[in-house]
């Protein structure tokens, strides 16, 4: 008998024998019902406002854009304000590759040892906690999320979900099967030294969001 079989046998023995296991999958695999907090049920402009407030509370910063076309200029301005060279690392993301990057040194590929600035595209976000969801893959290499000293992220307003449940639904519906689903809420941090909060532990020192406002927030639900 293999270790696997012995462990499962012990588990079944502990649970009262194997007879109780004679159930169909639909009888046991289910999501147990839990309340969805009010903060995970916001709609319309309230949802976006709460998202941005929570994102800021977790030490993220943001700029609002009317369209992706504004992204190169806005990124350039952010790099200048942060005293970072006009250079950024990104993946072959379609929303970025069609833009005019002629005033900036853009390189495409996964993260490297020294990476002052990276740019990635979020899949969606959650208003509940100000969290971004990013999917690893060819268009957005996962290492860009963690190796950039300043991590720039782009997101559309219409991609902000109310809470976890909305993010899972959107992801399941997309059919994507990435190796990692990364939830990112602000820059990396640690309080391991005398419980003093320090930003920039091993991941990004700063996370800046470019929010492309594609919603008429008065009507959005």
């Amino acid at each position, binding site marked *: 008998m293999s270790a696997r079989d012995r462990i499962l046998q012990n*588990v079944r023995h502990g649970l009262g024998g194997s007879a109780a296991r004679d159930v169909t999958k639909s009888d046991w*695999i289910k999501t147990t019902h839990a309340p969805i907090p009010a903060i995970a049920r916001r709609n319309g402009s309230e949802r976006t406002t709460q998202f941005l407030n929570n994102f800021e509370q977790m030490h993220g910063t943001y700029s609002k854009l009317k369209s992706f076309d504004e992204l190169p200029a806005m990124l350039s301005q952010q790099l200048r304000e942060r005293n970072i060279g006009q250079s950024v690392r990104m993946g072959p993301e379609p929303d970025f590759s069609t833009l005019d990057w002629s005033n900036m040194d853009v390189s495409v590929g996964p993260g490297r040892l020294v990476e002052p600035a990276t740019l990635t595209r979020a899949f969606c976000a959650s208003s509940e906690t100000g969290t971004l969801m990013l999917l690893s893959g060819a268009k957005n290499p996962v290492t860009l999320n963690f190796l950039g000293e300043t991590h720039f992220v782009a997101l559309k307003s219409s991609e902000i979900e109310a809470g976890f449940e909305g993010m899972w639904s959107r992801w399941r519906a997309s059919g994507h099967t990435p190796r990692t689903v990364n939830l990112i809420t602000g820059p990396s941090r640690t309080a391991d030294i005398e419980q003093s909060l320090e930003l920039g*532990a091993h991941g990004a020192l700063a996370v800046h969001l470019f929010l492309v406002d594609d919603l008429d927030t008065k009507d959005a639900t």
Partner: protein
Amino acid sequence: MIQHPAAKNFPKNVDQALKNETLQGTLRQVSGGFVDSRATARANLPEFDSLRDAARYMKNHTLQHLDLYLEEFEQAAKNAGGHVHWAENAKDAQQIVLDICADTNAKIVSKGKSMVAEEIELNKALEENGYEVVETDLGEYIIQLRNETPSHIIAPAVHVNKKQIEQDFRIAHSHLDPDRSFVDSSSLVREARHVLREKYFLADVGITGANMLIAETGQSVIVTNEGNGDLTQSLARVHIVIASLEKVVPTLDDASTVLRLLARSATGQPITAYTTFSSGPRRASDPDGPEEYHVVLIDNGRSKMLGSDFQDVLRCIRCGACMNHCPVYQAVGGHAYGSVYPGPIGAVLTPALSGVEDNKHLPNASTFCGRCEAVCPMRIPLPKMMRHWREREFEQHLTPAAMRYGLRFWAFFAERPKLYHFCTRWANRVMHMSARGKGRFSYLPFASAWTRYRDMPAPEATTFQSQWAKNRK
């Protein structure tokens, strides 16, 4: 500093911890920071207690069907291209990891923080077999340099102060400018970041733990703030996840319930900076990520806890709230327990994993104030389970003779109410008079272990029963 103490030396460890002024200074920060932050986070989420009820129900359901959920997780993980290994005990788990490292010709192993790795002494096994092991969580890195064990589940170096860390870094990072100054904590964090960044790229194997395993998707989940776990698993050629059996939850939505409770209970954050769901190796078109993904499912005594008085402890999500709120932990810190899991959760879990004989002091390291159960996000009845261990300790004649005779002495009176009331009435009067109106004793014979650190309250002149009887008339 206490180094790798054994749980059976708990009374001696406590004595050392209470006399350690450096430790006492750092412990005062624990009781303030974590406790206040958790209280604020709870107050900001009105549904917090309802979520605790739901989480308890969800985990109980999962444990009742654990074999099925484990099989479901295994299949989903394999469907994503992962390898799933089963380890009955610590030695088997070590061997599985060693075999994977050997198969991939590894030399350097980077590690994210994992309590089960501490439990199975994985670093020791890897180092004995010639691998360079690099802890990448800052707290774990600090204690690795100091050759110590973690003193807290989520803050492993909480017992170390800034000055000590500076000294450790100067010794360990001797290749850096010896005249550099560490003006604040951020300069220490920056140096660790710089030193470890290179190691992620050099590592052949990256090992992480798992806060959860999701049966629906076959994903392992890590909940972190530093980002080290993500660099560990994304830059090494091979990603190994080590997780104990009870980490499985049914679906992503069930994971949401845990996520809504975990960070709030641990650090008081609504969510940590990073929550990462991983499955399988890098996809065919991915430019980065590991080429292999392994999950090692570790039993190491868990299956025997199912159906026992201790099954409920398997609901634990390792937030550390119980120890943050424990007056005993706050007084003596984590090392005094001499076990991987300190505080109330360790007092229940450690005897279950490695026997009550060598850990008999741990269930007794409690005032039974009940704060651990009151703050536990999974509503684990920790005091009740500590009481079960105390009963077993007594039944197995592990209790010291003096205590057993003392209990028999007390039982003699307790079974004779009239005699009990008569004796306590007179004892109270004598004690009350002996306190000479101060209401407390600064010294008492046979109780110097108490009075050395605090006064002993003197009883009132009359007993509760006397006052009750008098006031009812």
